[in-house]
């Protein structure tokens, strides 16, 4: 598969390719061909109507809760006016609950539960953190922290690791040479190397043997105005431990909560300015 491949679905948002002829407007990172806004509105309304008709009740609630972002018009580039981020409340993150991990795996096509913990890809995992002095512990999901100053992007020799203007850090699978230097540089062990040949990939999340990958913050969903799969799953499970939104928008829930409550970012001391905030840790 080469960059700019026009086969439908051959270029997904997760790959980071800038020319998304096949995958549709929602995956366009830098702009692209114009799509009639009225048609888009019609399709969006129709899909929303169908969803409502088929899955009332819980789905309605989840859908309503998980739409803090609005779809970006396809003819507009990603803007630095947005800074997409996550707020994770460890106090609400249930021990033993793995719904966010399962949802990510299902959405993006990586295998979970993992068979080979050392070599299988894990875009998100549940961490148990324990204080050895007093025995207290908590669990939280850990994924790419979508840093504003990402070490993985700094060290990547080809620029395959890159940060979008809206803060989402991605790997362009077309120019990743598989050197793994980004994995050496990432302070969060957030990246995985594809050690084996892959089958049955998702159209929107192309993966490749010999390339590095990590959480894309479900960029293909975000560009459609939806929330990442993990956030949606957490809400569906009733935990509501994860909030997705625009940190740059003072009126967004995430920005309000980050401004109101004491939050922590993991290894904030390293100065990477992560886009993932944690509460109650």
């Amino acid at each position, binding site marked *: 598969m080469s960059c700019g491949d026009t086969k439908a679905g051959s270029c997904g948002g997760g790959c980071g390719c800038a020319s998304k002829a096949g995958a549709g407007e929602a995956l366009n990172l830098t702009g692209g061909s114009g799509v009639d806004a009225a048609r888009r509105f019609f399709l969006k309304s129709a899909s929303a109507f169908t969803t409502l008709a088929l899955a009332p009740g819980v789905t309605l609630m989840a859908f309503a809760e998980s739409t803090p972002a609005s779809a970006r018009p396809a003819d507009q580039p990603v803007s630095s006016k947005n800074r997409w981020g996550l707020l994770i409340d460890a106090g609400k993150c249930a021990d033993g609950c793995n719904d966010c991990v399962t949802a990510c795996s299902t959405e993006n096509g990586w295998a979970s*539960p*993992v068979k080979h*913990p*050392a*070599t*299988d*890809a*894990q875009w998100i*995992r*549940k*961490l*148990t*953190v*324990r*204080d*050895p002095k007093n025995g207290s512990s908590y669990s939280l999901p*850990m994924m790419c922290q979508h840093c504003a100053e990402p*070490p993985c*992007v*700094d*060290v*990547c*020799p*080809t*620029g395959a690791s890159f940060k979008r203007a809206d803060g989402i850090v991605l790997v362009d699978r077309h*120019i*990743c*040479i*598989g*050197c*793994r*230097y980004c*994995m*050496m*540089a*990432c*302070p*969060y*062990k957030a*990246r*995985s*190397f*594809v*050690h*084996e*040949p892959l089958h049955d990939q998702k159209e929107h999340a192309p993966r*490749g*043997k*010999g*390339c*590095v990958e990590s959480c894309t913050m479900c960029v293909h969903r975000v560009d459609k105005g939806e929330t990442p799969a993990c956030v949606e799953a957490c809400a569906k499970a009733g935990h509501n431990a994860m909030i997705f939104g625009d940190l740059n928008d003072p009126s967004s829930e995430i920005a309000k909560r980050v401004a109101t409550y004491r939050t922590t970012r*993991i*290894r904030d001391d*390293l100065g990477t300015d992560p886009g993932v905030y944690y509460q109650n840790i």
Partner: protein
Amino acid sequence: MARITFQKLDDHSPLFWGLLAMHAIVIAVGLGAVWYMEHHGHIVTGMNNAVVWGTPHVFAVFLIVAASGALNVASISSVFNRLAYKPFARLSGLLAIALLAGGLAVLVLDLGRPERLTVAMTTYNFKSIFSWNIYLYTGFFAIVAVYLFTMMDRGASKNPALNKAAGWFAFVWRLALTTGTGSIFGFLIARELYDSALMAPLFIAASFLYGLAFTVLVLFTMCRETRQALLSEEMVSSFRGLLVIFALAVLYFTIVFHLTNLYAAEHWKAEMFILRDGGIYTLLFWVGHILVGLLMPTAILLYAGTTSGKAMMSERRALTIASVLALIGGMSFMYATIIGGQAYPLDLFPGKEVSSSFLDGQVSAYAPSLPEVLLGLAGVSIAMLIVGVALKVMPFLPKGVEYDS
């Protein structure tokens, strides 16, 4: 000073052909290992999502570091005007190019997507030290080639200023190159056992040691092949002294690196891992790197300079043994540093214990697989094959005094 005459290898012994054949076979087997790893993916190696750089990187970085150091002799002759080193300057340059080629071959063939080498050569992120290194490595080839031209071309060699200029340029470039190689590790902010500006000078000192050790061993092998004393007793003594200085320099930077870390409480656990609790990494650090690679060569070489030492063994033999030990120590140093630094877990929550399905908080297991080792050995053989063939087709070696049969 008497005019220096150079020679090609022409009267070949079974040793020469045997070595060439052996290197060719090792390269072929190594390429087979590459095909196997690329076909199945890195799953067939010992590498994983924590130890992402394995044995091939140990060989590759070792060879690249040694390549820079192999230019020692040429630099001493051109930059520091030591004419006694001049006869070996050509071989020094050749060895530098060959070792770098071997190291880079391993590095490239271990990529997840080696067929995308052209991408790496055409698409750059200039903030990446890796990108700088691509320029530093390719530039090194070009500069040393020009340097060799100024030594070997009939016209250019008559112009000492040209040679001196090329020598200076190559000298500065090699320091930059090894600084770049050390900084590949030194720039990693989250890896406690790498993140240090001292990585650059440590690697430079190590390059001096390993590069000279390679030069000495190739020279002595060629003495056997040509049945000539290619270097005088004075030169043997000089090399002996240099090797001691370089070994002590590596020891110094190693001590400062770890003392600095030990002074900061935040690094104690990481230091205890490498110095005391790290199993194979601790063993390789103390026994391989410090004892075998630094202290024993130093002791042997110093003893060889004494009257009783001279009575016990020749300086040549002492130099040979010390060089072999230094190279063994070099591989140990690289293994303990590169693999050990990754095996030690990232500290996501300082002061806390973490666990996960991704093996967070655990020392990562790594065992070299056979294909990895074969690829690494192929890198050494690529370097040695280049040297062997070059010595046959061009006059890199000085003419020496025939040994008495």
